[in-house]
């Protein structure tokens, strides 16, 4: 029995240690290089596979190769919003500053993924549907997602006191994540209403193995990228927040020497 409780206790203390900015700064510093390594180890082969080894699509020719950046970005943009909302909830309920900061650093990265999804989607739409913008279900809800991200970033920057800004924007993220499925459903419903079922060329099921593998590899690479970018941003913000605290003075002197 004791090993069980001590395991749970270890988890709890591990979780609490992440709450301390100093510990977070040091530990994330160690993790980031590994995350970047994981990203490059996956992204480079994934791209090579997708862009050169995978055969052209019998219907679309080569324009489908944009899928290897479009779909992983789309999945990641939604995942980041969910991660941001969870972090905001943790920050709000247990009043952990590190969680609030992590949530706020998610927003710009999520917005970046959404912008890339929209850009690559419209570039892909031109050869496929003939126009740069097609009001289909996925692209429209991705656009609304971008506005939600900009809302969170905008609110966070509009309020002066940083902790209050983080909490208010975190609450908006929570409200947003609750609304995301409703928005997605209403937009999907709306598109089927106006154009009948759009012929979406890359329904997940219809991809054959040669395309699916690079897609999954790129998707996992995106997670490594997100981890590395998020931890880097959060470390800087925490350093700035605690700039007058002792642990920062020691880190700064350590870093400089």
């Amino acid at each position, binding site marked *: 029995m004791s090993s069980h409780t001590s395991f749970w206790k270890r988890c709890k203390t591990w979780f609490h240690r992440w709450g301390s900015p100093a510990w977070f700064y040091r530990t994330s510093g160690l993790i980031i290089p590994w995350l970047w390594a994981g990203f490059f180890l996956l992204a480079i082969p994934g791209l090579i596979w997708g862009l050169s080894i995978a055969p052209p699509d019998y219907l679309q020719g080569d324009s489908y190769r944009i899928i290897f950046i479009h779909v992983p970005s789309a999945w990641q943009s939604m995942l980041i919003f969910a991660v941001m909302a969870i972090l905001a909830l943790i920050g709000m309920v247990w009043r952990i500053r590190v969680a609030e900061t992590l949530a706020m650093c998610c927003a710009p990265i999520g917005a970046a993924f959404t912008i890339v999804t929209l850009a690559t989607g419209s570039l892909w739409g031109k050869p496929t549907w003939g126009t740069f913008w097609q009001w289909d279900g996925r692209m429209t809800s991705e656009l609304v997602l971008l506005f939600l991200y900009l809302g969170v970033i905008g609110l966070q920057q509009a309020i002066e006191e940083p902790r209050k800004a983080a909490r208010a924007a975190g609450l908006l993220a929570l*409200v947003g994540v609750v609304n995301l499925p409703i928005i997605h459903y209403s937009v999907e419903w*709306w598109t089927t209403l106006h154009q009948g079922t759009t012929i979406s060329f890359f329904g997940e099921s219809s991809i054959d193995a040669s395309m699916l593998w690079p897609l999954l590899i790129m998707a996992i690479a995106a997670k490594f990228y997100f981890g590395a970018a998020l931890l880097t941003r959060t470390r800087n913000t925490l350093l700035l927040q605690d700039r007058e605290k002792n642990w920062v003075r020691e880190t700064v002197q350590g870093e400089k020497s």
Partner: protein
Amino acid sequence: MNNLLIIAGHDLRLAFRRRNEWFQPLWFLLLVVALFPLGIGPQPALLAQIAAGVIWIAALLANMLSLESLFREDANNGRLEQWLLMDGSLPALAAGRTTAHWLITGLPVILISPLLAAWMQLPQAAMGTLVLSLLLGTPTLSLLGSLGAALTLGSRQGGMLLALLIAPLSVPVLVFATSAVSDAASGFDPETQLLLLGVILLFAITLVPFAIAAALRIHLQE
């Protein structure tokens, strides 16, 4: 519940004294809708096609603009703090304030909608659905808008930011309401959309007041 009625009653009496604040959102709504025929031309067929969207988007904008200072006055004079000290009743107070606001600005929009429908050449068949969709949709917009007002209390440029925050959240209401009206205009049965609007409204009534209370509490902890 009692607190909700007290606040709502109090705000309504207060609104009687500031008649002009009533009419501004209404003027704005009439103006925005009137601009469309001027901009697009008076052909009835074309106007009828976009009638539902125009009326609803104008209602959305009017709602957001009228909500900007919902809590600002009470935040400045210190009454919001006293609300907070009555722990447990902040959601009810927020709901009361929003109900009063909806009665002051939401209801007139519904009463005036037949005129807007006439301006936009909306077929007679869709009139009932338009009013019903406004009845089911505008309370949700008021709730979301007052959440936006509470969130942007801490920032200087409230109005614009409020619209940016709340517009994405209002997409479902806008989508279902406009399609209900346009379906009714072309003879289809808008029942599903209206039911969905009702579901969203119930969803909003139960959850959003707590979010507003949380936002007010966040603002007060300056």
